[in-house]
């Protein structure tokens, strides 16, 4: 069949994946109404990006770990440890800010090697290894910091989480540079979509009707531009957003389009079959944990830069937010299913809910209850749709 596929097929084919986008839109609309539009105001959107970026960075690594059939409970402690190392190097030892960043990243790699060794080589369940890691790295963070918080960081370091690239081109009340970047991103998206469509046609595969394709691209581009417009009207393009976008693009590509990515899914789907298909499972597991260590270090740097201090108690419960983001984003508890984009949307759902409720002045305790209920409902939807899908067998 070389024809075109219709909308209903398009929507239902990926119910489990598309459901999350629909839910995200609904939640954004709900809180926009509830907050009287404050949620989508320029200042708040900027704030949202800054405030939840480190959770999203953690969620990227976490979803890969979960797809492979593991879990990582230690990332919150690693955030504290890596932030602490950066602070000690920069503030206490007085070295340049970039040395601190390198030290934090190396710490993340070492943490990853430690946990990867136990999980991949020795074969201890990741739940146990990372539970131990949660204690070990929290303890080390306290020791490194001598149990006190260190501050302040130099200006350059703080720029990572609080910096904006604005005013480069000037602008009449809004930042032109930000708009140019977003316009470039939009064009890039459209070109990439068009090329993928052409490739599919080359291979005689069904594609959606041209008008539907156009509507899809225009819709996404308008969302991107609207987002950019709001940012341009506030403080401009945050550096951390650029970092996040780069990570999402790189890891989206790695998980979906590379041999390594495929191996992660194959292991999560059926470990024995993956081994007998020539997947070097030890190597993949090891690299996954090293990768998680590096991402946790990046999150640690961003977090300490944002709070302009390193605290022994930093990153407490971050692991749970990252895990929740992955599951809300459609990852399967049993492994083998889940996507980086999904985890990002899952993280944004949590972010929008927390942020919206904060604006509404709802207290922390109620927020926790609501977020917990949403997590259970999201996974229940996943279980339910899986049951429905398999009812005919």
């Amino acid at each position, binding site marked *: 069949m070389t024809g075109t596929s219709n909308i209903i097929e398009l929507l239902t084919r990926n119910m489990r994946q598309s459901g999350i986008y629909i839910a995200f839109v609904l939640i954004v609309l709900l809180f926009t109404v509830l907050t009287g539009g404050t949620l989508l105001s320029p200042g708040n959107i900027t704030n949202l990006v800054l405030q939840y970026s480190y959770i999203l960075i953690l969620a990227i690594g976490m979803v890969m770990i979960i797809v492979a059939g593991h879990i990582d409970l230690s990332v919150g402690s690693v955030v504290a440890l890596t932030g602490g190392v950066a602070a000690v190097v920069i503030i206490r030892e007085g070295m340049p800010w970039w040395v601190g960043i390198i030290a934090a990243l190396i710490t993340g790699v070492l943490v990853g090697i430690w946990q990867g060794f136990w999980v991949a080589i020795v074969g201890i369940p990741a739940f146990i290894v990372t539970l131990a890691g949660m204690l070990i790295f929290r303890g080390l963070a306290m020791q490194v910091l001598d149990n006190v918080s260190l501050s302040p960081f130099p200006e350059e370091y703080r720029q990572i989480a609080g910096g904006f690239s604005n005013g480069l081109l000037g602008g009449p009340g809004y930042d032109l540079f930000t708009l140019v970047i977003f316009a470039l991103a939009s064009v890039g998206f459209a070109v990439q979509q068009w090329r993928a469509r052409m*490739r599919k046609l080359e291979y005689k595969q069904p594609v959606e009707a041209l008008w539907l394709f156009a509507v899809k691209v225009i819709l996404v581009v308008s969302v991107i531009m609207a987002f950019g417009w709001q940012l341009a009207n506030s403080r401009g393009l945050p550096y951390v957003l650029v970092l996040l976008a780069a990570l999402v693009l790189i890891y989206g590509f790695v998980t979906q389009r*590379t041999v390594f990515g*495929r191996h992660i899914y194959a292991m999560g789907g059926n470990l024995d079959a993956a081994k*007998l298909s*020539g*997947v070097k499972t030890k190597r993949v597991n090891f690299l996954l944990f090293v990768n998680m260590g590096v991402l946790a270090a990046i999150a640690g740097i961003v977090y300490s830069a944002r709070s302009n201090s390193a605290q022994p108690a930093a990153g407490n419960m971050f692991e749970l937010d990252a895990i929740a983001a992955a599951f809300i984003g459609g990852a399967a508890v049993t492994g*083998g299913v889940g996507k980086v984009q999904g985890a990002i949307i899952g993280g944004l759902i949590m972010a929008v809910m927390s942020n919206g409720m904060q604006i509404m002045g709802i207290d922390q305790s109620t927020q926790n209850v609501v977020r917990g209920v949403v997590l259970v409902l999201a996974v229940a939807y996943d279980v339910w749709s899986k049951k429905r899908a398999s009812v005919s067998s």
Partner: protein
Amino acid sequence: MNENILEMRSITKRFPGVVALQDVNLQVRRGEIHAVCGENGAGKSTLMKVLSGVHPAGTYEGEIHFESKQVSFSSLNDSEDLGIVIIHQELALVPHLSVAENIFLGNEKSHGGIINWHEVNLAAAALLEKVGLHENPVTPVGHLGVGKQQLVEIAKALSKDVKLLILDEPTAALNDDDSAHLLGLIRDLREEGVTCIIISHKLGEIAAVADSTTVIRDGSTVETIDMVEASNNGEDLTRRIIRDMVGRDMENMYPARDVTLGEEVFRIEDWHVSHPTQRDRKVVDGAELNVRAGEVVGIAGLMGAGRTELAMSVFGKSYGRDISGTVYMHGKPVKIESVSDAIKSGIAYVSEDRKRYGLNLIDDIRRNISSSALKRIAPRGWINENEEIAVAERYRGSMNIKAPTVMSVLGKLSGGNQQKVVLSKWLYTEPELLILDEPTRGIDVGAKYEIYSIINKLAASGKAIIVISSELPEVLGMCDRVYTLSSGRITGQLPVEDATQERLMELMTMEKD
């Protein structure tokens, strides 16, 4: 009293988009062995799920009468209460619990919630005696072989005062000895008044044991054959059942082929493998064998003879420890330390347990087929997804995989189609040697014929093929040369012209000297 213990009348069961059963009737006489046959997907399992209450009353149309009373079950427990017990193809035993604990699981012998273990073990021992299993009731079930586990399942059914015992493919995983024992046991139970429904693909078995046979095709009953009457009339029962199942005469179970042998492709010499946990136990002991291009070589052996262990140890040391010996490809020794080495050397191994070792059941056809040879669609490190789909489409066509698209999830395909996907996956690695471990286990007659045809085509294209099978007629029908394996040793090697089932069985049961 009605002589029919069970009557299922006009059963119709619909799933969204499909009618799984259409107006099916099944009458089972009291005290008989009643076989239910049909291709995979014909609706046998659905019918049994309706009968046992897995599909509760109300989700299907039609009536069930058991012991002359109309019944409606809303769960498995309801049917068990009346003495209908179903034993599934995939055994439902807990490997870490003991035989006795498994037998009484969910049905514990307790006084006020406290279990009297002495009583349990005694009762279990009595049941084990009855099914002819000489094992200590405190042995963990995981330590027993599949054949013995099957007997534990039956003992468990007997503990529940079973009146109607349903066995779904009971001998699929058993070797000939264990099968014979099991069938004998079913006959004994019949003498004691237990009625039995047996679902099986092994038609020889059905012809030997069943009193009547109901054949289902595409969700409808074709006919119920009175086996005694039919065999008194001198009919070829197997043939009649096959005709009913596939809707046509199957001229020959095994497609004919022309054999052109080429150079030697694969050889192992002095191959030794020890058990992974019991080091002093040799699982493969000095095996030597070779295969030439275009040749189909059989390895016949009883369960536990070391057939799978031999294959998996060659395939990148996937089984066992202290592996020694030499593998030659095209006469040159090769070093195979891992599965990827084996794939690179041109060896492919299609496991006997495709669900556990062969497939990612939650993923689709396309990604399963490419999974062992991702480099071919990712020459520069990233995957060309369009090429991947094109490859999968090619195999869907050439292997006749019945699925709506290559995006169909594996878990939803029938056993035969899953097996075709596994074969496609390994063919895509472009192997020179294919080791097929029980390639037709659990798949229906029609699909078997297709698999045989594929094997013949592969041999004709110059591949070397090893077929491991516990079905001797299959070995004799498919292979050019047969090795026999007993207790880890190669006990014989015969060209197929000289081999008979009796001769092979003799070699397969040869003891160590």
